[in-house]
């Protein structure tokens, strides 16, 4: 049985029932097949040859990669094509790409499974494959997910590289047959196959038809990194020219003939329904054609979006009462703490991530025991592009124009909601103006489809910024409690952690350090607030918790936080090397002025190591973040500038959350509405960021998320160095650093 890793209890993507059938997936996976016949009608034009389901080539030698991932800013499409072109020995100028059709044939659900499992545990049976095996396993989970920092490290490594190498082999075979020479005498480079001895040469375009007659090998020989020509180099992203001239098409830009615009107000309290509404005033407004209830929301449809939005304010709505009408963040926080207290008494512990060594003995023998409670709030994604979707329903067919992190999942959601067959729903995929996990869920596509069906008119539904903020699928608020045991020499001998909100990735709460006795357990403490993946998922909480508490341990032991980490990484040379790299580049240990401080963190997530040093300074009672030095080891940087960009992006995203991000609940509803009460980092408070890339020989890791978790703890640790205040609750903006906050330690 291949190792799919531990399946965690809650699956964000909603396919847990399918995932649970691991045997089924493997059973399906064992079937092989060349899928070209099934996909050619969808993706190939006349004159184009499919070399496998991921590559087509025309007679002029234009090569098109077909990529099962969407674009939300991360730039993975260019890099995936780069990987394919390198293994194929194609000239980069001949290569373009298209996003795969939203069709079961191009499902990538195996990646979704990796997403849910927290790290891609691709069974060995699937490595490496081109079409059949990879495809069939993917199809078992009919998803097309972009998330989990998976595009390069799974689709790239197990899909695109293999597809490119297989195509190259077919082109070589074609030339060998044509010229009646041994394949071993042929050289492929720059989209040509050459035979030096006979001075013959043919372009890939000329060889395409003959090459397409061969079956693609599922196990072609891949290049050694020393042979790479494109991987490891920077090529400009192909999507960017359209993003500097306004021509890029996002979901919100969709134009459908005859379309109207819809504005929506959802029940402020999650779970409430429309009890009744009075639309008489709204219907008097110019341009308004429909006012309708979706059950949990009221919608106005008008000729223009502004008209719809204006009229919506005139609709008088009464909502049903719910059990959560008085719920508040204060209550949640108290409940989290009381549920953790119960767990600490041994009640209602629902699972353990690690139980090694003799914790009881460690704490009994300790010379010093340290305790702390950490807490982080709910967070919104706050994508720049507010949630939106455009839908048309006619003749039993539903079409949706939208930007989706999981277009096949959206199709399935729309079909299920409208009680249609999957084949009756078509998703027209667009660029996303940010995703960060929010666009993994198709709730807005479903709403647009329902409105289009109810009104009989094509409709573009746009959420206002307030709707977007108040009806997100939030990063869960979480409390985590720690105890550390130190011996008389200041060595960390016991690590005890209990928390709630256990989702994915499973390994998020684990620490890389060698500590003999570790107990890491969790319990449940649910709220009525919808939750889901938010850039780096559980790492976004635990990265802060574990690395900030470790800084407290170092201080209690009177040790330098870098040196102490380093010492506990004696068995992890890759981690240690990266920590040394960031310390060296940041000038760790160099003196700083009063009111300034440096903090360090180390994070392993999504297969990638990230070490960060943050420098802060206290000015007028406020913390300014001056500099972030980041060292990253993703195994191999396929696109160094792309990896650097993802680190910069992950750092700013995590910094916005750490400094300002807080969604609060009062009377059962989210209070924040826009960027004045949910501030984010702007140009004037963005630090200088330096990225240092280390290529190790480790398996290739992800890029989109690993930059995020380590910034909050490095920031908190820097603030302690600058001010002496321990930041145990985010965001930082709630602290007043003019007056030292003396936090009372909670006993746990």
């Amino acid at each position, binding site marked *: 049985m291949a190792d799919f890793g531990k399946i965690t209890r809650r699956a964000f993507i909603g396919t847990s029932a399918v995932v649970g059938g691991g045997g089924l997936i493997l059973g399906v996976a064992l079937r092989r097949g060349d899928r070209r016949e099934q996909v050619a009608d969808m993706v190939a034009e006349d004159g184009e040859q499919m070399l496998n389901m991921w590559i087509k080539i025309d007679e002029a030698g234009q090569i098109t990669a077909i990529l099962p991932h969407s674009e939300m800013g991360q730039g993975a499409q260019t890099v995936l094509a780069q990987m394919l072109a390198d293994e194929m020995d194609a000239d980069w*100028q001949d290569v373009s790409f298209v996003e795969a059709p939203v069709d079961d044939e191009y499902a990538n659900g195996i990646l979704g499974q990796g997403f849910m499992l927290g790290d891609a545990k691709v069974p060995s049976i699937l490595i490496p494959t081109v079409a059949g095996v990879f495809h069939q396993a993917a199809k078992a989970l009919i998803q097309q997910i972009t998330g989990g920092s998976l595009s390069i490290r799974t689709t790239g490594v197990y899909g695109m590289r293999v597809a490119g190498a297989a195509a190259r082999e077919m082109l070589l075979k074609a030339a060998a047959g044509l010229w009646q020479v041994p394949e071993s005498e042929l050289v492929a480079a720059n989209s040509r196959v050459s035979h030096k001895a006979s001075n013959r040469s043919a372009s890939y375009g000329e060889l395409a038809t003959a090459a397409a007659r061969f079956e693609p090998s599922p196990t072609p020989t891949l290049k050694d990194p020393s042979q790479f020509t494109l991987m490891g180099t920077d090529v400009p992203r192909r999507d960017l020219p359209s993003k500097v001239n*306004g021509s890029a098409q996002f979901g919100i830009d969709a134009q459908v003939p005859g379309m109207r615009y819809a504005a929506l107000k959802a029940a402020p309290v999650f779970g409430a329904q429309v009890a009744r509404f009075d639309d008489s005033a709204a219907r008097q407004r110019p341009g308004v054609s429909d006012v309708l209830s979706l059950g949990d929301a009221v919608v106005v449809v008008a000729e223009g979006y502004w008209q719809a939005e204006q009229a919506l304010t005139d609709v008088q709505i009464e909502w049903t009462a719910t059990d959560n009408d008085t719920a508040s963040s204060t209550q949640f926080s108290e409940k989290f703490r009381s549920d953790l207290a119960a767990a600490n008494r041994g009640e209602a512990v629902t699972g353990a991530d690690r139980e090694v060594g003799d914790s009881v003995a460690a704490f009994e023998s300790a010379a010093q025991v340290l305790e702390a409670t950490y807490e982080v709030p709910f967070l919104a994604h706050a994508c*720049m592009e507010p949630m939106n979707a455009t839908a048309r329903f006619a003749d039993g067919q539903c079409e949706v124009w939208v930007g989706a992190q999981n277009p096949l999942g959206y199709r399935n959601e729309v079909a299920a909601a409208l009680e249609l067959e999957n084949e009756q729903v078509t998703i027209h995929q667009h660029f996303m103006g*940010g995703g960060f996990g929010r666009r993994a869920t198709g709730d807005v596509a479903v709403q647009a489809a329902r409105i289009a069906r109810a009104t009989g008119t094509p409709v573009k539904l746009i959420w206002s910024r307030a709707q977007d903020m108040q009806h997100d699928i939030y990063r869960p608020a979480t409390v985590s409690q720690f105890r550390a045991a130190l011996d008389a020499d200041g060595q960390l001998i016991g690590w005890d952690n209990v928390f709630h909100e256990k989702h994915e990735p499973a390994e998020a709460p684990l620490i890389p350090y060698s500590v003999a006795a570790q107990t890491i357990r969790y319990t449940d403490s649910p709220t009525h607030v919808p939750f889901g993946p938010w850039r780096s998922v559980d790492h976004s909480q635990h990265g802060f918790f574990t690395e900030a508490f470790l800084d407290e341990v170092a201080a209690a032991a009177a040790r330098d936080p870098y040196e102490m980490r380093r010492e506990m990484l004696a068995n992890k040379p890759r981690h240690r090397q990266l920590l040394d790299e960031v310390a060296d580049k940041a000038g760790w240990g160099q003196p700083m002025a009063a009111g300034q401080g440096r903090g360090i963190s180390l994070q392993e997530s999504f297969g990638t190591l990230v070490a960060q040093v943050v420098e802060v300074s206290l000015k007028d009672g406020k913390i300014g973040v001056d500099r972030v030095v980041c060292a990253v080891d993703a195994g191999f940087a396929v696109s160094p500038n792309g990896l650097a*960009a993802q680190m910069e992006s992950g750092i*700013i995203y995590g910094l916005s959350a750490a400094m300002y991000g807080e969604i609060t609940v009062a009377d059962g509803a989210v209070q924040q509405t826009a960027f004045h009460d949910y501030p984010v980092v702007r140009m004037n408070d963005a630090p200088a960021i330096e990225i240092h890339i280390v290529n190790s020989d480790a398996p290739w890791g992800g890029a989109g998320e690993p930059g995020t978790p380590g910034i909050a703890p490095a920031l908190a640790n820097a603030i302690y160095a600058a001010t002496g205040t321990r930041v145990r609750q985010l965001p930082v903006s709630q602290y007043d650093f003019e007056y030292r906050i003396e936090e009372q330690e909670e006993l746990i």
Partner: protein
Amino acid sequence: MITMTVNGEEQSLDVDPNMPLLWALRENLALTGTKFGCGLAQCGACTVHLNGTPIRSCVTPVVAAQGGAVTTIEGLGNADGTMHPVQAAWLVEQAPQCGYCQSGQIMSAVALLEQNPNPDDAAINAAMSGNICRCGMYGRIRKAIKRAASDQAMVGIYDPSKVSQGEEVDHG
């Protein structure tokens, strides 16, 4: 009827004069490069130029543009089809990620450089802090502004095919 020039073309719009300019551009003129981000002038995604001044079109009534000249991202390039030097600098620095905020960022940066051809960090902060980038590309945007400022020779000579080949643009 409201009349104005948009990207050099006369336009007459039969719309509610109080409707924000943003929606007139996007829905009536199909100029979707200008983006809706918040509707509250907090994020800058909707930035366009009105008579050369950057404005937040999401809170500017269309009547405010009566008789005026509006420039959007679609009208920024040179008449010969080449990019504006700020757009070119954006590509050299690979500044965008999702790209949604970038029309507004570029319009703010162009207005800054027209006022101040050689802005320092403080001037960039003052001019650009109204434009949010959730992908966090502030460092690259700052570098792109300085590149465009330091190299006005990029005007008109920028060849996008060079960028797509991964070569540095020759700054002459």
